[in-house]
């Protein structure tokens, strides 16, 4: 029998646990030439802001050992143009759409969510409280538990469908933030955004990014995020969406064993835009071969003695 791949985030059911990571798939439609974007669990859009943003000056990207630094600066066409131009295309492609939103002020998150609440095809919002590359907003909210709580509470009032909070890993204890999101009614948390990083060209002695520091993604960060997914999944009841350095189906399986319900893929799409196709196949075969009937049976199945884990907050 074919294993059951579907998973639930709040009220929304994804046909499989794969999601695109915000900022790595444009608005989704760019990928449609490479695979059927309707086959993936969800397409998470580029971060949308109330007004269009042109983003940071170049250079915006640099490769490092098994990783990539980026500082795009939330370049996007703005939520209104997204609703008018991009959303109809995604609907036509039968994509399950999750809108990622970012703002400078708490009330702007609510305004964004309210605009998107009017669009049934936006099945969930993911709150970007973790962008390392803008001066205001983004990570500043994500590193302050009170600010995070306020924003989630305000969005909860205006958005009845699934709310996912995307957390930053650049904090001492990420589970404190996950619990705060859960307490205010978030349906899931994404663990995690990119890590603040930096690289220098030693011949010009200039930083490799215009903004000097940027966000590190790619296989280099996977073990770091794996530890955080494990920590958060032991601290909250709501689903955890893992995001960090997935390059093959084995990485997706590893995150699910660590406790993730769904898994976002990002940087891998730049090299292999059709990666989700093989990943879904690989996961399905793994489940069948290992006699798991569903993703749910595999989730959090890590064979571990929690007494062996130093510094684990079991609050």
């Amino acid at each position: 029998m074919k294993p059951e791949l579907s998973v639930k985030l709040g009220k929304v059911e994804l046909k499989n646990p794969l999601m695109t990571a915000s900022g790595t798939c444009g608005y989704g439609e760019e990928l449609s030439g490479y695979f059927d974007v309707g086959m993936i669990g969800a397409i998470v859009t580029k971060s949308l802001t109330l007004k269009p943003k042109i983003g940071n000056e170049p250079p915006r990207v640099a490769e490092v050992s098994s990783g990539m630094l980026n500082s795009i600066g939330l370049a996007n066409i703005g939520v209104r143009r997204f609703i008018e131009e991009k959303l109809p295309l995604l609907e036509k492609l039968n994509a399950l759409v999750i809108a990622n939103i970012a703002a400078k002020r708490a009330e702007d998150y609510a305004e964004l969510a309210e605009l998107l609440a009017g669009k049934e095809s936006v099945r969930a919002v993911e709150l970007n409280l973790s962008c390392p590359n803008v001066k205001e907003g983004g990570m500043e909210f994500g590193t302050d538990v009170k600010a995070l709580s306020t924003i989630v509470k305000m969005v909860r009032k205006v958005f009845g469908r699934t709310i996912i909070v995307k957390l930053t890993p650049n904090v001492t204890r990420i589970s404190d933030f996950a619990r705060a999101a859960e307490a205010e009614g978030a349906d899931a948390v994404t663990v995690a955004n990119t890590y603040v990083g930096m690289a220098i060209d030693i011949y010009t002695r200039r930083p490799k990014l215009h903004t000097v520091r940027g966000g590190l993604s790619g296989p280099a960060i996977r073990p770091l995020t794996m530890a955080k997914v494990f920590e958060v999944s032991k601290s909250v009841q709501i689903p955890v969406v893992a995001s960090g350095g997935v390059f093959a189906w084995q990485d997706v399986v590893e995150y699910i064993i660590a406790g993730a319900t769904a898994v976002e893929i990002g940087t891998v799409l730049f090299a292999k835009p059709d990666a989700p196709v093989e990943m879904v196949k690989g996961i399905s075969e793994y489940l069948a071969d290992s006699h798991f009937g569903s993703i749910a049976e595999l989730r959090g199945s890590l064979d571990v003695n929690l007494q062996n884990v130093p510094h684990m907050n079991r609050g």
Partner: protein
Amino acid sequence: MPTTSFLETVTVIETREVAKGTFVTKVKAPSIARNVKAGQFVMVSFPESTDPLLPRAFSVCDAFEDSVSLLYVAVGKGTRRISKLLPGDPMVFNGPLGKGFPNMSGQKTFHVVVGGSGAALIPILDRTAKSRGASINFYYGARTGSQLVKFDGVENVNHATDDGSEGFHGNVVELLKKKIDGDSSGVVFACGPTPMLVALQREVGVSVETYLSVETPMACGMGLCQGCPVRNAGDGDYYLACKDGPVFRSTEISFEMKP
């Protein structure tokens, strides 16, 4: 929407060192070969590899029947690895991507200015010009004569070297200016290092219809990451080199990255 782009597993046919440190690798890539236009590029990656992690962008050097050629200077991790591949070894090509040079017509004279690995465009532009009956001249600059690649069957190539060891002694933009001598009836195409493009834009682009193929760091080549902005000269907004370019009318863009 990339309706004419293909993700193709290609195999190496041969690699030749065509000048000091400069290589041409020819691969079998039927879908891309049949669809590529001069000035378009491919993103090249290695199967099952995360180091190098990101695909590398290459302008297509030539396309004939089932094969595609790339010309590159082997300086980085990716280019060195490609130069060492053996016949039959696989790579993954994503392309053709981006917008190439405008169509050439028989009525005008085309002046193509290239430097460094920008010379990759000589064969494909020569082939295109011949098929359309357009008249074409090349201006090809390098630091020294040993770095210049000789292309079989391509005529009208004018060399410029910084050290004067071959052709015109000086930079290639000066050479072009000398040759066209104030005649603004032709069209200029250019591909090469940013300082060369900046000089062309300033000194030629104002009077002659000029198209520049820009070089910028790029992660995906398809508009997914928005990592390759090029400043719009008009409203100050950004184009993306991968989708809106890499070829731009010289009056459309302003350079802001330090060369």
